[in-house]
């Protein structure tokens, strides 16, 4: 069965073409990926990301359960804060990366598209196993998620709410009214631009909010954005896409997400990570910027002098840089910034340089 967003009809009217992603029929683009990409870098764009999941975690041991099942110590995350983290297996590999929002007595977790049942089951099993009193509810189909992203996102959204968005810090979250509808707002995103994500329930209220945002952004040149540009936008910032970057079982250390690990607490997968850290010689996520023409893609081999040293997990043409860019896992001793490696595209090597992420720096558009 293919699911559709409650905003499907709105998207058809706006001229979207659709693709199936993680069991959802979602807009891949409206005008073109490149056009939509630039709108988000320079102005403001509106995304429907309802395919992402929503899980409520409540009960007296909710904080303990999140701390046990993620690399974060949830006790450190204040009320009104969103936190990026990963959920691991015992062997240290990533089941999913996620953001959880601390909203008073409750937490809302946002697992990736299609991960709602897996994560709900995992958390429920762990709560039972560790005798934690927590209730885990998959409410993914009860929420529509919108993301408003781009340098003009704040002024656009401010027109629709009495809440002073100037007081909402980066990675802050709270309940707000947007266009008269109660939403959960989080000052987060997946584009590397200024932006917000909105959780809206019931889904029937979402079309009104969507239209109100489109109207409020009219003078700013707002456009609806599809999943195609969502992917190129995140890739230019070297943000992980779970289905690509964690495919086949990768640990946060391999994914260079070590900065997200709060070592000073017990969590599932910790022992495996400590062991891997000590051992040291594992492949690590690496950013490669092509100097030759050609576009690296998922699963292209990465070589040095004809010998395989890694594999591309995500690749695209960067709409901002107009050159091929790739993320992938590379041997620990072959990834010094400035190193030149070959990416094999259709049996031919393309030269690429190891760079420090991101590919496209903050405020890129203002410097053009």
């Amino acid at each position, binding site marked *: 069965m293919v699911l559709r967003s409650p905003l499907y009809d709105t998207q058809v009217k706006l001229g979207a073409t659709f693709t199936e992603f993680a069991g959802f029929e979602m807009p891949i683009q409206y005008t073109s*990926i490149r056009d939509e*990409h630039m709108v988000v870098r320079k102005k403001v764009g509106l995304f429907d990301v309802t395919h992402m999941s929503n899980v409520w975690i409540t009960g007296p041991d909710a904080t303990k359960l999140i701390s046990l099942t993620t690399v974060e110590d949830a006790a450190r995350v204040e009320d009104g804060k969103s936190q990026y983290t990963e959920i691991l297996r015992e062997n240290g590999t990533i089941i999913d990366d996620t953001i959880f929002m601390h909203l008073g007595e409750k937490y809302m977790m946002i697992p990736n598209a299609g991960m709602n049942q897996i994560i709900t089951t995992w958390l429920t099993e762990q709560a039972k196993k560790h005798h934690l009193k927590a209730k885990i509810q998959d409410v993914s189909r009860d929420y529509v998620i919108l993301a408003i992203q781009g340098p003009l996102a704040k002024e656009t959204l401010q027109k629709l709410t009495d809440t002073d968005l100037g007081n909402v810090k980066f990675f802050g979250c709270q309940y707000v009214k947007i266009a008269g509808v109660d939403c959960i707002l989080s000052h987060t995103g997946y584009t590397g631009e200024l932006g917000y994500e909105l959780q809206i329930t019931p889904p029937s209220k979402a079309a009104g909010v969507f239209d109100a945002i489109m109207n409020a952004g009219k003078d700013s040149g707002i456009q609806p954005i599809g999943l195609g540009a969502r992917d*190129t936008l995140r890739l230019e910032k070297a943000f992980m896409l779970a289905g690509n970057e964690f495919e086949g079982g990768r640990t946060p250390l391999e994914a260079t997400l070590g900065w997200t690990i709060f070592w000073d607490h017990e969590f599932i997968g910790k022992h495996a990570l400590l062991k891997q850290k000590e051992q040291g010689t594992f492949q690590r996520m690496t950013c490669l910027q092509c100097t030759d023409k050609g576009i690296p893609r998922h699963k292209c081999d990465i070589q040095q002098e004809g010998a395989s040293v890694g594999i591309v997990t995500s690749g695209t043409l960067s709409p901002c840089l107009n050159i091929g860019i790739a993320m992938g896992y590379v041997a620990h001793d072959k990834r010094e910034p400035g190193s030149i490696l070959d990416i094999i595209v259709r049996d031919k090597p393309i030269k690429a340089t190891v760079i420090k992420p991101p590919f496209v720096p903050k405020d890129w558009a203002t410097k053009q």
Partner: protein
Amino acid sequence: MTDEIREGLKYTKTHEWVKLAGTKAKIGITDHAQHELTDIVFVELPTVGKEIKKGEELCVVESVKSVSEVYAPVSGKITAINKKLDDSPETINSSPYDDGWLVEIEIKDKTEVNTLLDPAEYKKA
């Protein structure tokens, strides 16, 4: 968006067009194909002199997110490639039937031309 189907050309079901001139065939992708692909950002062309069989991969056209193969509508030897596409692949979007042509083939077997679609047949396909 209406796709142009130009008169005077031959077509394939896989959205290539063929312009015949004596024993030479100029080949490109149709307006419909370029609309479907949207922004074309890279074209990998074959080398001149290469022999190719009908139905084989002739070249690769990439948009930001997709890689599409273009198939040889007829067999023959490649006699010219559109070098301009190396620097301006977007020409295929702006001019699919003229400046955005891909390759020229010296046709080996004239009877293969009969298997190609005329504009009315392509429109129905």
